[in-house]
């Protein structure tokens, strides 16, 4: 039971940060309620988890494992808050405090929501197109020697070019800025998916194909039932890599002439020297990105249930 003190450490810094925020007056004009709301919510959250952990078991172990990190984040909140809004040690406007960021997030929540949706729409369209096109071309290159001969060298050369370098070309080809951004995101997602898929199919054990053929499978049946399911782990490795690359392409392409989205919002806020908004957008971006990754992981775990417990 020696770890149970760490449970206190998970909750106490948030309570202390809340107390210091209420007790110390700010040196700038600021609405601190959203930040206090966040700290109160986190205090309540970790307090509840601590109470639930009193019953012991794996739930308590999970909390004990994470407690030091959770608590450290609370300490950072408190110190950061004191150094910025409370004392002005960190120079403004470049380094706003957590309370200012929360203030912006709360005040401009509808603008953020709209820009999030813009980014998500662009991501969904570009990423879906890129990974679909990537897995199809990867399957063709991995499956057929002829496709491999002609396309693999091209893919290797085109794939290493950062999508952003293609902006001038894509701008000429595409009719408007949205489709330009979609194309850029799609291109950046395409390469990692296509490459790992092709490699995945090529590395499937030859005897699976031999066994399938002897059992009476046609070439097309083997493609559908052996090559593609066998390549799914590789496809998802590619998709995970592609998510990060596509996301950074997304933000950059939104900065060059889009009319909405988190990248656009950051550019706009920077123009107004509104750094609190910039940081707010970055925080939202991180949350958005983590959610997308979690969703993709969920799909992957469902599709790869056959691998569970398999040590390769």
């Amino acid at each position, binding site marked *: 039971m020696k770890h149970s003190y760490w449970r206190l450490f998970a909750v106490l810094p948030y309570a202390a940060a809340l107390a210091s925020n209420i007790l110390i007056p700010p040196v700038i004009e600021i609405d601190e309620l959203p930040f206090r709301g966040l700290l109160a919510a986190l205090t309540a959250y970790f307090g509840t988890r601590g109470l639930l952990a009193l019953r012991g078991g794996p739930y308590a172990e999970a909390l004990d494992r994470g407690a030091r990190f959770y608590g450290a984040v609370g300490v950072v909140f408190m110190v950061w808050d004191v150094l910025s809004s409370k004392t002005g040690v960190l120079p403004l406007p470049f380094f706003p405090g957590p309370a200012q960021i929360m203030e912006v997030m709360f005040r401009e929540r509808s603008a953020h929501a709209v820009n999030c949706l813009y980014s998500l729409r662009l991501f969904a369209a570009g990423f879906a197109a890129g990974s679909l096109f990537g897995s199809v071309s990867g399957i063709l290159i991995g499956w057929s020697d002829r496709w491999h001969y002609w396309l693999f060298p091209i893919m290797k050369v085109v794939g290493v070019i950062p999508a952003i370098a293609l902006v001038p070309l894509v701008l000429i080809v595409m009719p408007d800025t949205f489709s330009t951004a979609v194309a850029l995101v799609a291109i950046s997602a395409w390469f990692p998916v296509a490459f790992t898929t092709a490699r995945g199919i090529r590395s499937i*054990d030859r*005897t*699976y194909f*031999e*066994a*399938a*053929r*002897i*059992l*009476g*499978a*046609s070439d097309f*049946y083997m493609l559908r*039932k*052996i090559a593609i*399911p*066998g390549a*799914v782990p590789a496809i998802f490795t590619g998709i995970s890599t592609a998510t990060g690359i596509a996301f950074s392409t997304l933000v950059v392409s939104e900065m060059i002439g889009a009319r909405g989205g988190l990248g656009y919002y950051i550019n706009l806020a920077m123009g107004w020297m509104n750094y609190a908004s910039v940081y707010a957008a970055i925080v939202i971006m991180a949350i958005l990105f983590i959610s997308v990754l979690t969703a993709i992981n969920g799909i992957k775990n469902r599709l790869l249930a*056959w*691998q*569970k*417990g*398999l040590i390769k």
Partner: protein
Amino acid sequence: MIDYDETKTDLPVGAFPAVALPVVVEVKNVTREFRDDRGNGIVALDNVSLSVRQGEFVSLIGPSGCGKTSLLRLIAGLDEPQSGEILADGEPVTGTSHERGYVFQQANLFPWKTVEENVAFGLKARGVYAQRRSDVAEYLEMAGLKGFERAYPHQISGGMAQRAALVRSLINRPKALLLDEPMGALDSFTRMDLQEKLLELWQSFGTTMILVTHDIDEAVYLSDRVVIMTPRPGRISEIIDIASPFPRNRSSAIFVELRNRVLEKFHLAGAEPPVEYII
């Protein structure tokens, strides 16, 4: 439905008048050469001829590199000879066929399919699943895999996986089943268990069996005939009839004598030199 012949099981299969039955697999003067990394030719099979009759259980035995697996792959249609001919049911072999099932050394079940889906694979691939759907459960039960239908291959033991691989081939009702050291990777208890299962399935289906093995006991225990092969170049040196009725007793005097005879021929065949090539 399984073609189960009541009268067959009571008869000692080895005592069948094999001569009267048609030849299912015929290997005629087959030569197969491979090239190693340095481009040197290795003769895996040199002018090999062999006939296997319907319902026969034939074992190919020999040291590594004697070409026994190469021969099996040629019969399966997974490979082509440089010269000579292989006939299955009188027709030249030009590729694989579900009429000639193949069981690999590693069970080779598709890891992304459940045991049940693996067994049903041949039926689905050939488009006969709709008519024969109920067979899947029957074959799974024969393999002692009831209750493991939904398991993935990595969740079952090696012996279970091989039994699943056996019925996955047998569900296609092949004329011949080619077995490439299917018991090589198993521990001795599991191996004996699988040998019994194999005999049981052979006697109930009457499928022609060609088994590649390096285990003399296994060959003598299971086969009507044992084909002894020698390496470099791969040749058949001797074919021994095992005229002993089933079920065989591994410790009986006649079994021990037969085993010793095979062992003696094996040594006479000069199966001593160290292994340099594994084909």
